[in-house]
């Protein structure tokens, strides 16, 4: 890992410094959702009036909506009144006091992933007094970005410091009424990340949220907004390759990306939340809305995701290709093992002329995992010369798992050129025997074959992320055969 990454990580790991005041006595609200709760959250975060109103309107709309059930997933009903929507960021003092108090299974995973001891403590939320020599380092780093006019901060900070940008773009890609979970997020989001790259600037480093969400609870309803102004370029990494302690079952994040003329956004995710145990108990329900708008001509948005965690994944990072010649890309690896269920895919909406999109989806199902690809390619009337290429491959390991694909095409312009390829294969006994005959263990053989299957997506990830993602797949697949 290079030093810049290291710096950024240190920086993002610091305790949150803005937006919270000490004059309110309560640290947490009781479970339940109401207008009062939303007003409380907004007040607690010193939000301007317009944002409070924005949240309330989202909430009122949410009340009229129903939880969607069209996805190929099954779970017990969620009681939205049984969720705590606000608790002040926990300082690490509330966490376990030492690694001895941490779930041994989690520790075993850290060990397999090769995470250094001191980091394991941080990930597991152990109360450690980290000696921060890095404050100055972080400042240097922030100065470096600021010198180029790049804003990269927490969402709450952006609301305070750059309200005009937030107000202009918030909800402009994912409207509050977009869907049930987006509406809920809009009403109750607690924090997230904000990034603005000014015209002509190429962000010199990969921005990471990595360990940004230090507190177990603020990750639950995350809000991210990234704006790449004309001719700018940014690569953004979200996620964490190590599973973090997390007691929230429901996650409903919203991510909005906006690319203006000639701008380029690359958004990479590695999602590795707790998948639940072998019997399907516990585990995160992850209902995310991610969408990018290629507003400008020649703009480009590229989503790359590696989804190995969560009990349920409901996620369709999409691109609205509005600008002429704009490009949308979606590269995805989704793994469902144990009893995980993933329903994921993308939507490419071609509005401008000569817009192009590429979809590469790799689904891996093992044990009793269920994996669904759901994709839509929509080519509107005015999108002359639009092109799409989709490839959806499924790999099955064992015979108790399942793979499903639900591609949908909606083509309203006859000049469109659309190609779709799909395949389903099983890891063959002959392939395994071939690898083993050459000396590879059964597990190494499986990993090798799975990595080969995922290659086209790994190639899209930033180098160090790719290596970690590969390791993560290996850990997730452990014990899935044999």
């Amino acid at each position: 890992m290079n030093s810049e990454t290291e710096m950024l990580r240190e920086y993002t790991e610091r305790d949150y410094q803005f937006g919270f005041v000490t004059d309110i006595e309560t640290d947490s609200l009781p479970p339940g959702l109401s207008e009062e709760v939303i007003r409380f959250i907004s007040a607690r975060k010193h939000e301007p009036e317009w944002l409070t109103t924005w949240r309330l309107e989202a909430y009122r709309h949410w009340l009229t909506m129903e939880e969607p059930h069209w996805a190929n997933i099954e779970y017990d009903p969620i009681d939205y009144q049984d969720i705590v929507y606000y608790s002040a960021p926990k300082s690490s003092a509330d966490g376990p006091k030492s690694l001895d108090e941490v779930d041994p299974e989690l520790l075993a995973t850290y060990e397999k992933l090769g995470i250094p001891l001191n980091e394991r403590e941080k990930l597991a939320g152990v109360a450690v007094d980290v000696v921060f020599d890095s404050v100055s380092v972080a400042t240097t780093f922030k100065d470096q970005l600021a010198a180029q006019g790049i804003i990269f901060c927490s969402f709450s900070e952006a609301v305070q410091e750059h309200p005009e940008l937030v107000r202009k773009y918030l909800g402009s890609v994912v409207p509050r009424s977009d869907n049930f979970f987006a509406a809920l997020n809009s009403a109750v989001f607690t924090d997230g990340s904000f990034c603005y790259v000014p015209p002509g600037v190429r962000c010199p480093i990969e921005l990471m949220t990595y360990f940004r969400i230090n507190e177990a609870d603020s990750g639950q309803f995350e809000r991210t907004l990234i704006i790449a102004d004309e001719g700018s370029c940014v690569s953004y990494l979200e996620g964490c390759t190590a599973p973090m302690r997390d007691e929230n079952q429901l996650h409903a994040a919203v991510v909005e990306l906006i690319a203006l003329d000639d701008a380029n956004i690359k958004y990479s995710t590695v999602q590795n939340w707790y998948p639940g145990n072998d019997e399907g108990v516990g585990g995160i329900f992850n209902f995310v809305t991610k969408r990018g708008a290629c507003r400008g001509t020649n703009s480009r948005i590229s989503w790359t995701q590696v989804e190995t965690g969560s009990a349920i994944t409901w996620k369709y990072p999409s691109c609205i290709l509005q600008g002429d010649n704009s490009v949308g890309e979606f590269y995805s690896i989704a793994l469902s093992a144990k009893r995980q269920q993933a329903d994921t895919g993308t939507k490419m909406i071609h509005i401008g002329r000569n817009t192009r999109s590429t979809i590469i989806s790799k689904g891996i199902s093992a044990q009793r995992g269920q994996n669904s690809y759901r994709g839509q390619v929509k080519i509107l009337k005015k999108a002359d010369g639009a092109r799409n290429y989709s490839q959806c491959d499924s790999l099955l390991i064992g015979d108790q798992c399942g793979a499903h694909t639900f591609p949908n095409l909606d083509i309203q312009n006859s000049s469109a050129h659309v190609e779709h390829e799909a395949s389903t294969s099983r890891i063959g006994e002959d392939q395994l025997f071939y690898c083993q005959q050459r000396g590879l263990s059964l597990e190494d053989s499986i990993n090798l074959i799975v990595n080969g299957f995922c290659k086209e997506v790994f190639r899209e990830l930033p180098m160090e992320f790719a290596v970690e993602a590969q390791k993560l797949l290996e850990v997730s697949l452990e014990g899935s055969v044999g």
Partner: protein
Amino acid sequence: MLEIRGLEAGVKGKTILKGIDLVVNAGEVHAIMGPNGSGKSTLAQVIAGREQFVVSAGSVKYDGRDLLELAPDERACAGIFMAFQYPVEIPGVSNSYFLRSALNAQRRARGEQELDAFEFLAFIQDRMALLNLQDELLNRPVNDGFSGGEKKRNEIFQMAVLEPRLAVLDETDSGLDIDALRVVASGINSLRRDDNATIVVTHYQRLLNYVVPDFVHILVDGRIVRSGDRQLALDLEEQGYDRIAARAA
């Protein structure tokens, strides 16, 4: 080195090998010939440890150890190599990465240092030359889209890199053109040493002109019906299995 006694094996309740006795010593080359479906590939795969073939009787000893106790990868690490009659494709995995992983797995098992990508490339240079293998084949996915002949050449290339003690080559000559046959045969020959042994399964005497066997065995319906020296292969070519097998009976 290899000692097979009264071996019976089959698949899905069907007996294919019906009592095989075969002893292979270090430094020897054995040829196994026999009609289609007689059990040659089955024998090769039982030696390599393919689980779908169930051994119902007999024993297989390798350097005095019970070979049947070992998993396929343990056998490979102990020096057993099988060139597949139908090499398997592994999409997305480059040939060189695959082979390096395999070599390193075996080196690890022997307590040797693993090779990094650069050391590996240096290590394989002369072996590639030996088999006249193009660089391009190294970077392509394992056997994916290889021609029949390229697959066979790649098998022997892997063998050259892995340097097994006991190599079982299942119809490696099938599908090779005349020049490729010569290249592959000289590859096999140059790997011959006093301390290793080779079993070649073939239908054609032609290969045996290049790779000269010490022993030839005729396998018919799961049994070795005759054994002899290289002359047996020549007789076989002239007279066919029916007469050779009949004479054995």
